[in-house]
C-alpha cells in the first residue's frame, strides 16, 4: 500500500460522461497510421503482448509450445521482438518459467480464484503464494465483483492491498476489474481508483472469460484514472486491456489512445500490455504485408 498517499472516498470518484467518452474514443479511430509509423507500431504491439492460454485443458506440452512461440514469433522475419510475457494458470508457472528462461519473456500467473474470485481470501492468498513460489514474475488477480456491487469498497481494496503485500518485490501486480461485470463507466472509474490506490502496478480490463471484454471506451476511462493518479502522485500505473483485441488495426488504435492520453512514456511493455491470444498472428501478417507488399496465406504463420 502506498502509505504516503491519502486514500480518497471512492463513493465520490470522478464522474464519467459516457457520450463524451464514446466521442473521444471514436477520434482515436480516425487517426491514420501509415508507413514507418505503422511498422514501428506493429513491432511495439508484438512486444506488448501477454501471450495467453487459460483453459481447463491446458497441458505442459501446450504451454511449452506457446512459450516457444512467445520467443520465436516468426523467425522468417528477422529482428522481431519477443512478446512481453506469457500468461498462464498458477499450475503452469513452473513449466512456463523453465520454457522462457533467459529470453526476457516474463511469466504472469492469473490468481485469486480466477476468473470469478468467489472463494475465501485464504484460498486466494494460497493461490498467489503458490504462483510466487513457482517463480511468477507477474500476478494477474481478479477483484471481488460481488463485494463491489454490495458497496463494500473497503473489502475490495483490502484484498488487493494484501495480495500486493504478498507480491512484494518479486512480482508486479495486475488487477483485473472484469469491467463487463462491473457495470457503467462510472463504476469502471471507481473500481480503477480502488485498484490503483490499493497498490496495483497495472489495471486490467477483463478475464476474457465473459462475453464483454476490453473496449476502447472502457480502456479510455481507465487511462483517465491512471492519468489522474499520475498528476496527483507522479507515480505511473500500467494498463492492460484484455480480450477481444484480435486485429492490428484495433491494437494500433489502442496505442494512439495511450499516446494521446498518457504520452509516449507509457508506450513500452513496462506500462502497457495487450492480453491476447490471436492478436500476434494478425500483426505478423500485417508486418509481412508492409515488408513484401502482399498479404500472405495464414498458413505461413504458425498457430499456437
Amino acid at each position, binding site marked *: 500500500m502506498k502509505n504516503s498517499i491519502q486514500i480518497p472516498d471512492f463513493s465520490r470518484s*470522478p*464522474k*464519467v*460522461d459516457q*457520450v*463524451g*467518452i464514446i*466521442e*473521444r474514443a471514436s477520434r482515436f479511430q*480516425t*487517426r*491514420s*497510421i*501509415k*508507413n*514507418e*509509423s*505503422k511498422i*514501428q*507500431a506493429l*513491432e*511495439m504491439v508484438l*512486444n506488448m503482448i501477454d501471450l495467453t492460454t487459460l483453459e481447463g485443458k491446458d497441458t505442459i506440452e501446450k504451454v511449452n509450445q506457446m512459450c516457444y512461440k512467445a*520467443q*520465436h514469433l516468426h*523467425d522468417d522475419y528477422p*529482428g*522481431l*521482438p*519477443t512478446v512481453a510475457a506469457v500468461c498462464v494458470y498458477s499450475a503452469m508457472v513452473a513449466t512456463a518459467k523453465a520454457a522462457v528462461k533467459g*529470453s*526476457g519473456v516474463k511469466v504472469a500467473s492469473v490468481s485469486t480464484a480466477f476468473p470469478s474470485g468467489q472463494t475465501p481470501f485464504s484460498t486466494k492468498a494460497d493461490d498467489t503464494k503458490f504462483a510466487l513460489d513457482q517463480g511468477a514474475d507477474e500476478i494477474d488477480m481478479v477483484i471481488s465483483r460481488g463485494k463491489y456491487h454490495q458497496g463494500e469498497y473497503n473489502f475490495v481494496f483490502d484484498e488487493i492491498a494484501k495480495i500486493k503485500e504478498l507480491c512484494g518485490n518479486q512480482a508486479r501486480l495486475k488487477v483485473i476489474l472484469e469491467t463487463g461485470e462491473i457495470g457503467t463507466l462510472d463504476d469502471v472509474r471507481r473500481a480503477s481508483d480502488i485498484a490503483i490506490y490499493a497498490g496495483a502496478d497495472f489495471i486490467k480490463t477483463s478475464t476474457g472469460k465473459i462475453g464483454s471484454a476490453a473496449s476502447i471506451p472502457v480502456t479510455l476511462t481507465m487511462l*483517465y484514472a491512471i*492519468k489522474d493518479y499520475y*498528476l496527483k502522485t507522479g507515480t505511473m500505473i500500467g494498463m492492460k486491456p484484455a480480450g477481444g483485441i484480435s486485429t492490428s488495426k484495433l491494437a494500433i488504435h489502442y*496505442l494512439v489512445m495511450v*499516446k*494521446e492520453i498518457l504520452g*509516449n*512514456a507509457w*508506450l*513500452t*511493455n*513496462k506500462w502497457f500490455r495487450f492480453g491476447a491470444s490471436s492478436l500476434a498472428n494478425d500483426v505478423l501478417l500485417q508486418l509481412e504485408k508492409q515488408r513484401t507488399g502482399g498479404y500472405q496465406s495464414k498458413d505461413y504463420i504458425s498457430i499456437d
Partner: protein
Amino acid sequence: MSKKKIETEKMNWEYAAAPESASHIQLKEKYDHFINGKFEKPSSGKYFDSINPATAKKIAAVAEGNSKDVDKAVKAARKAYDNVWSVMPASERAKYLFRIARLIQEKAREFAVIESLDGGKPIRESRDIDIPLAAAHFFYYAGWADKLDYAFPNRKPKSIGVAGQIIPWNFPLLMAAWKIAPALACGNTVVLKPAETTSLTAMKLAELIQESGLPDGVVNIVTGDGKVGAEIVSHDGIDKIAFTGSTDVGKLIQKTIAKTDKKVTLELGGKAANIVFEDAPLDQAVEGIVNGIYFNQGHVCCAGSRLFVQESIKDILIKKLQDRIETLIVGDPMDKNTDVGAINSKSQWETIQGYIELGKKEGLEIFQSSCKMPKDGYFIKPTLFTKVAQSSRLAKEEIFGPVLAVQTFRTVDEVIEKANNTPYGLSAGVWTDKGSKIFNLTSRLRAGIVWANTYNQFDPTSPFGGYKESGFGREGGLHGLSAYLKFD
C-alpha cells in the same frame, strides 16, 4: 538467438504524414458567376484570386461581381420564381432537393478536399462534419417540401419570392446548404453570395446544381466581396435577406433595409460562455472545451471562447486542458491527422495575432502549444489565456480564432450573471453531473443554443440562432422553415 530489443524506457512514436490525395479533384482556373443556369463572365471582366491559406498560393480565380451581375441574377431568380418554382407541385420540388443531396454525397470527397484547400480547415473536419452535414440539410429540407401545410397547423404558408443570401467563410458549403435548402423547399428562388476567400465549393455546388437539372434561375450564385453583398441587400427585387457573418455588417444590413418590407434573418457573432462546474466529468469537459474553441481554428460563431471554471477545480482543469492542447496536431489541413488547420486568410491571421499581442500587453497569463509549426501559410497555435477579467477585451470581443479566455467563478448566480454580461447571445455550454443544475442554467442563460455536457453539436433538425447582437431568426429544424414562408 538474439532478439531485437525494443527500447524499453522511452518510446518515441510519431505519426507519419498521411496526406489526403488531391489528384481526383477537378478545379478550373477561373470561375464565372452562375446565373440563370449558366456560367456567365463578370460584366466587369475582372477576377480575383482564391488563395490556399496553408500555402499562401493561388488555387483559382473567381469572378468579381458588380451591380449589373447582381441585377441579372435577381431578374433570373424572379423569372424562375414566377414561372417555374413557385407554381411547381411541392413534391416535385422535393425531388430536386433529394437529388442535390445525393449528388453531394456522391461527390463528398471532392467537396471535402476543395473545402480544405480553399479554406484551410483540416480534412478530417471537412470530410466528417462539413460535407455530410451539408448533404443532411438538403435531405432534411427535401422532406419538408411537400409537408409545409402540416408544419404550421391552421395556418396557410406561402413562399416569399427571391431570397438574397450572404454567407461567411468559416463553413462555406455547409452555410450554402443551410441557406439554399430551406429556401428552395419553401418554394423560393435564391441569389447567393459566398464569402470572397472561400467561393470554390459554392461554385462546385453550382456545377452540381446544373448537373441535377434544377430549373434555370432557381439558384444563382454571384461571387465578390462585400460590395456585391451590399448590392444584393439593397436590390429592389429581393424579398428576403438571410445573412450569416459579423455583427457590424448585420447592423449595416438592418439600416439598409429599414425602409423596405424585406424580411430578414441574421446570424451574427458570438462570445459564448462554456461553464464547467466542480462536479462535471472533467476529462469530457476538457474535450468539450477543446472542441468548443479549437474546432475549425476557432472560426465558429458559436465557439466557446469564454471558459468559466469553478474556482475549486481551476488548477486541475487548466492542467488537463494544457496537456490536451499539447496533443493537438497543427499543420497541413490536407493531412488526415491534423486537428487544427490554417487560419482562413492573412487578414484574419493579423486580427487574431493582434488579440494575442493585446492579451500579453494586458498582462494575462498565456499558454500556447509547443507544437511544431509549418513554415508557410497562416497558422496560429492553440492559445489559452488565464487570469482574464470580465472587463478584459479578450473576454468581451469576438476573436474568431483559436484563442480561449479563461475566467473563474464561485457560485451559480455569479456565473449566470457573467455569462449573460455580453452583447452577444448565440450559444453556451454547461458541464455538470447534476441534471437540475443543467435545467436551471439552460432556462436562465440568454443564448439561442445551450449545450449540456457537450459542445458544437449540429443537426439539421435543430434550430440555430441567437439572442441580442448575435442576430434573430432561426435556421434549421421546423423553425428554419418559417424564415422562408409568409402566412395569410
